Each structure stands twice: as structure tokens, then as C-alpha cells.
């Protein structure tokens, strides 16, 4: 197991290099650059040239990339091109924990509620409750997050005045963004749990357990769920990754200073340093989550050996 983990960590290095190269090239090849975007309507060739020189953007691409790799090796992410007073490391340090917190809470909520709903649906297979849950899943998957966000804000913040409209600081600020972000993963996890547990409930060992006289909860949680857990865990892992990246709409609507908003703004402003750093952070996150999910298989299913 330890060897496997080390092997995966070693494989991450070329992965990061590849990601760094890809995003570096893509960013610089896109039309527009941070200087033109920054100066906007007041851009002139002369002003632009001086700024570009200050930022080192007039050097050949290869030289810039080598410099960049050198900085990365010492974990220095540089300063933002659009906001030269801002160190990218500081930006990540403040924005990333917020997104992680948001994503973790959302996925935790989705995982617990989704599993419960999925198990309920699986045991009530074919009956009205199951149909209702399935309908809920379809809704959750098809309604876009900004619609859900708008509806919840209207109801809870403006109409009932129970929660704040937007912002980040109070515990109350977490409720709506986490709820909205949890909707899609909840739908996915419910669906997977329902089919996976439903499948497990058809197995012979469940019939044996029942005929032994075991009560349903024990059958479910001690036997069926453990066997059905693998697909659910995979989905939870994927959901976590998507929640970090896909939180953009939630972060914009609820004004949460998280990393998804930072990343998308960096794309629009062509802020190469911030963009490159956020892509590498995402790569690291996804790699870690995938590794965690893979490692968990060995615990959930003793037949899996690395």
C-alpha cells in the first residue's frame, strides 16, 4: 500500500509539469493580454510597452516559462500581473480555504443526505416514495444553480428575512451557498446510492441475512451498504472536485471570496500568474482526491490489493 501511494505521488510530478506547460501556453496564446485589459479604454502602445516591460511580459516565451518553473520549484507563485501589489501566494492562502470549506460542507451534506435518500429509495423500490425521490433527483440535476440560488435568496433572504442575501463572515452566510452548491452532488449521490444499494439488496447474502432473522437496519448498514459503498465513494470524490471548481456561480451570486471566482476572473483579465497558480492548485486537489478515493477502496473492499 505504501509503495502504491509513493508511486502515485511520484507520478504526480510529470502531471504537474504537463499541467503547468499546458496552461502557460494556453494562457499566452489566447488573444489579449493583462496589460491591455488592465488599461482598458486608456491603453496606448507607449503606456502598454512600459507596463509590459515592468511585468517581464516582453521577454521571449521560453525564457518566461523557464523563470516560472524555477519559481515553482521554490513554491513561489509570483505576483499578480493585473494587481502588482498582490502576491499570488497570499491570494491562494485567503481564497482557497474558503472554497475548501464551502465544498467540504456542501459535499458532506450531499453525501449524508444523498446516501440516506438513496437507501430509502432503494428499500422502497417501485413505491411512491421512490418515485418522489427519483423526481427530486431529476430536478436537482436539471435546474441550473443560479436558478436555485435566485429562488432560495428570494424566499429566505428577501421574503422571510431569515438569512443574509450575500456576504461571507457570519455562520448564517454559509447556509444558502452550501445548500445551493450541494444540490447537484446530492442528486448524483442519491441516484448512485439508489442503484448501488438496490443492486446489493438483490444479492444472495442479503436473502441469507434476512432469513437469519436480522432486522432491516442491520441488513442495510452492516451488510448491503458496505458492499454498495464503492461507487458512492467514487461519486463523493468526484463531487468534491466539481464542487471546488464549479462553485463559480455560487461564489459570484453570494459574493463569496473563494478561489473559483478568482480563477475565472483571472481568465477574463488574462492574469497569467494567478491563472497558472490556480490550475496547479486544482490539479493538486484533484490528484489528492483521486488518490484518497483509490486508497479507500482497499479499506472498503478487502479483495482490492495494491
Amino acid at each position, binding site marked *: 500500500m505504501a509503495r502504491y501511494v509513493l508511486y502515485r505521488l511520484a507520478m504526480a510530478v510529470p502531471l504537474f509539469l504537463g499541467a503547468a506547460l499546458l496552461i502557460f501556453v494556453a494562457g499566452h496564446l489566447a488573444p489579449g*493580454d493583462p496589460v491591455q485589459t488592465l488599461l482598458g479604454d*486608456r491603453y496606448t502602445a507607449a503606456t502598454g510597452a512600459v507596463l509590459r516591460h515592468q511585468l517581464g511580459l516582453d521577454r521571449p516565451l521560453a525564457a518566461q516559462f523557464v523563470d516560472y518553473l524555477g519559481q515553482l520549484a521554490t513554491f513561489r507563485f509570483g505576483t499578480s500581473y*493585473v494587481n502588482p501589489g498582490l502576491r499570488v501566494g497570499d*491570494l491562494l492562502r485567503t481564497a482557497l*480555504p474558503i472554497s475548501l470549506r464551502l465544498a467540504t460542507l456542501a459535499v458532506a451534506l450531499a453525501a449524508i443526505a444523498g446516501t440516506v435518500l438513496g437507501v430509502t429509495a432503494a428499500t422502497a423500490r417501485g413505491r411512491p416514495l421512490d418515485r418522489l425521490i427519483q423526481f427530486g433527483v431529476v430536478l436537482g440535476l436539471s435546474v441550473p444553480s443560479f436558478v436555485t440560488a435566485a429562488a432560495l435568496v428570494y424566499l429566505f433572504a428577501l421574503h422571510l428575512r431569515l438569512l443574509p442575501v450575500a456576504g*461571507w463572515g457570519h455562520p448564517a452566510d454559509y447556509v444558502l451557498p452550501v445548500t445551493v452548491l450541494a444540490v447537484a452532488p446530492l442528486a448524483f449521490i442519491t441516484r448512485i446510492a439508489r442503484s448501488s444499494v438496490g443492486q446489493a439488496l438483490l444479492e444472495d447474502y442479503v436473502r441469507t441475512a434476512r432469513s437469519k432473522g436480522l432486522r432491516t437496519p442491520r441488513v442495510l448498514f452492516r451488510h448491503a451498504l458496505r458492499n454498495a459503498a464503492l461507487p458512492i465513494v467514487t461519486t463523493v470524490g468526484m463531487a468534491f472536485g466539481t464542487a471546488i471548481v464549479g462553485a463559480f456561480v455560487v461564489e459570484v451570486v453570494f459574493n463569496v471570496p473563494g478561489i473559483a471566482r478568482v480563477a475565472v476572473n483571472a481568465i477574463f483579465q488574462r492574469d497569467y500568474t494567478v491563472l497558472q497558480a490556480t490550475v496547479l492548485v486544482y490539479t493538486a486537489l484533484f490528484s489528492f482526491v483521486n488518490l484518497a478515493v483509490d486508497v479507500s477502496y482497499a479499506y472498503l473492499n478487502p479483495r482490492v490489493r495494491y
Partner: protein
Amino acid sequence: MALGVVLLLAVVAAGPWPAARAQMPQTFRTPLGGEAPTLDPYYAVDSASAPIVFLMYNTLVGLDAAGKLLPQAAASWDVSPNGLVYTFHLRDNMYFHSGRKATAADWKWSFERMGSPALKSPVGSVVVPGVQGYDAFQGGADGIAGITAVNPTTLRFVLNPARRGGFLNRLAYYAAVVLDKDVVGRGQGWYATQDAGTGPFILKEWAHNDHFTLAANPRYYAGAPKVATVSIPIVTEARTQLSEYLAGQLDFVPVPLGDYQRISADAKLKPELLVYPRAQILYLGLNPRVYAPFRDRRVRRAFAMAIDKARIARTVFFGFFQPANSFVPGGIPGAYKEYRGLPYDPAAARKLLDEAGVTGKLPPFRIAMNPFGPVAQMEAEPAAAMLKQNLGVDASLEKTEFSTFISNLNKRTVYQSFMTGWSADYLDYSDYLDILLYSTSPLNRLNYSNPEFDKLVDQANAAPNDAARIALYHQAEALMVEDGAVVPMLFSQFAYLKKPYVKGLRTSPAVNGWLPFDTVVIEK
């Protein structure tokens, strides 16, 4: 197990809960639409940095709510009989936020930094080129000879006769401020934690992408501001700003165009609505370098006469914006309000196309829309439809995201035409005609080159007095509009919602629509 992993991550990710933004008494809360890329006034040309700079710094002269000039750092000034020597008598009680008194020497240093050839800051072209010795300074001379700090409270400017026009108006430019050179001397990024200003508010906190907190300056020359703190959260979505205002989390917000009618019809919100003119022109720029038929003046005029701006203003913008026949908006001193421009006359337009021999032969026409905000598209759609209907030209629209749009605009060889706008940074004719249409202006993206227009602008800049200057500018403006260089579309307005307990807020047609908040009082 999976739950365990998730919970572990939660523990790892959870840090200290950030302190809630307490609603303290005497805090004025208004949002900003985006993160400010800089707080160096000489680089603050975007709509996020400019308002913050406006609150923390002072200019020699300022503006009142009607856009008229007022003394600010200069208590008074004398102008020589030939109009070329301005002597400013500075106040003796202006202090930098660091504690040091601001003197004429600081102003000289600041203007020289503004026009420094090493920095080439984007604000450097506004005030300093009009001063004697600027060209030598660009060539390597030590300082600008035309600016003299006669004594700590007397600052003298000798102007270059060829570029003397609108000097006082230019000095009111929000970026023509005095800087504390000790703070600036800290090096790159000096503005991140401290401001170098003398203004009514001091930078207390800048949480990137989150909020600004400004504290009142107790030593402000005009008296300490009545609000202790200005809290400026960064809220990128206009609708979210509105929702926060309705929920009582903000005191003063802009009204998104799409919500204007609903709010002005709402009995509870209508009294809180502030509507007033904005010094902004929305126009369609015609680029003859890319769309060949535009090389014939008649074709440009035909296009201009085929678009019914009054109807667009009435129906699409529900009368909230005004149709523009001239180019320079009201709010600019001397604006040509009575000018009728080119009429809406589709028959005459078709006749012009006949004369030019292009009827039925016009190649497909594309309008590139500025993606910033919904306005460009709201105007471009009816405009394209009218061109199709009235002239038979196959007009279509294109839109890309902002970076690409700006990059293409700067190339000058990509867009056949573009629907965009221009807002006043300082209230003067030169901010419009010189900057956008003079043939050698680096910001002329229309490839418009008319020697007669250039001559009129040169004469205006060298004019001996304001009346003569404005008269010449009127001629230049008329010439440019008749020439069909652009199709002026609309003059816009500001619409803000302000809570009834906020008193003393002054509005302005320039920048973001308000004057610094030192007169604001919260009466709760």
C-alpha cells in the same frame, strides 16, 4: 469510511472563522463592482480603482455637483493677463495621512512623476503636456521647467501656448493628485497597505477580492468627515448589490438597467431613487480601414441617418437614456446642447448611397459590441435591424469577452464598426474630441484622419480664452458628426438607490457619479 475522509478534510480545511463585518454606527456602506487592480492614482484608470482613489486623494481644484470648478488644495489662484501663467495659493493646512504637511514642492514632485517618461503612466497625457518644459522633460531634462514651487504655499505653472486649453478643467481630473513621496518611495506595491494621500478618507484595510475599509481623516482640511468609516465590499453582480441594498446590508447602490422600470414603479423604492445625467456618450464607431465603403463620406453619413436613435431611446431604454445628436455630453462645460446633428432620414440616406453608387452592393456589415454590461447589445440590436430595413445592408452583431474585445479594438484592423461608450474622466472637451478623434491620438481607434478637424482642435488648444476655445470645439464637433466619423447614439444617466437615512451625499456627472463622501451623514 468515506464519511470519515470527508470529515477529516473538513477539519483540515476549517480555519478560524473570519470576523463578521459588524454593522458599526457611522459606517457608510457602498459596493464596488470588482477588485481594484491598483491604488496608485497614476495607474487608476479603471472603474474600480478610480472611486477609491477619489476618496483618498486631493486635486488642486475640485468640482461641485453641477460640474463647476471649486478650490480644493488650492485656496485661490491668479491667472496672468495673457492666460499662460497660473499661480496657485495652496492651503496651509493640508496634511498627508502620514502626518507630514503637503507643500508646493510635493505638488511639483507629483506632477513630474505623473509625466515621467520612465513610467509613461496612462494619466500622464492629461495635465502635464500642457506645461512648458514637458517636451524637454520627455527628452531627458531634469524635471519640468514650467512648474515652480515658489514657496511652500505657492505653486506656479507656465503653460505651453500651443496646448494651454482647458488647464483648470484638467487639474480637476481625479488622478491629478499630490502624492506623499515617502510612501511612494517604498517601492513596488506601496499602495497595498497604505495610501499616499491627503484626502478625506484613509486606507484602513484592503482584503483582496473582498472589501475595502476606509477610515475618516481627522485632519482633513475641510473638516473631518461625518462618517467614521466607509465600508466598500466588492460585489461583482449588480443584482446581488441590489438584493443586499433591499435587505439592508448596503446604503447606496447603482440600479441595474434591467431593474430600473420596476424600481421606479415601486411606491416604496421610488423615493429612494436618484436619477441624474451622466457625462457619457454611447456611440457606434465606424472604421473605414476595415469596411471599405466607409472610405466614402456619403456612406458613413447614410449609415448615421438610417438609425433612429430617438426611437431606440424611447422604446429600448424606456426614455431613461437620451438620444445623442452631438458627441460631447451635457456636464462637459460648453457642451453643444443646441446642435441638431444628422437627422433620422432613411430616404435621404438611401439617396446618399445611390450617389455613392453602392446601393445593393454593400458587403455584409458587422457591429462588434463592447461586452461590458448589457447596454451595447441593447443598442446594437435595433441599430442593426434599422440598417437592414432602411438601407438593405446585411448587418449582424458580434460579441467576444472583454480582453479579446479590447485587444481587437487596439489593433484597429479587426472591427468594421464597434458599439461602445466613453465616459468623462475629467470634464473637458479635450477628453472627448482630442483623445478619440485627433488623427495622431494613440486612443483614436477609428482611423479617423481629417486635417481640418485636427486644425480646429489645435486652434482650440491654443485659444486665448474659454469662449473662443469652446466656439472652435463646437466647429470641430459639428465637422466630425457631419463627416460621419461616428454615429452618436445615446447620452446616459446615473440611477442610484440611496437609503433615506443617508444625508449630504453629493452627486456628479463624472467618474462614478458621486463626489467624495466627506459630507455624508448617517442619521439613524
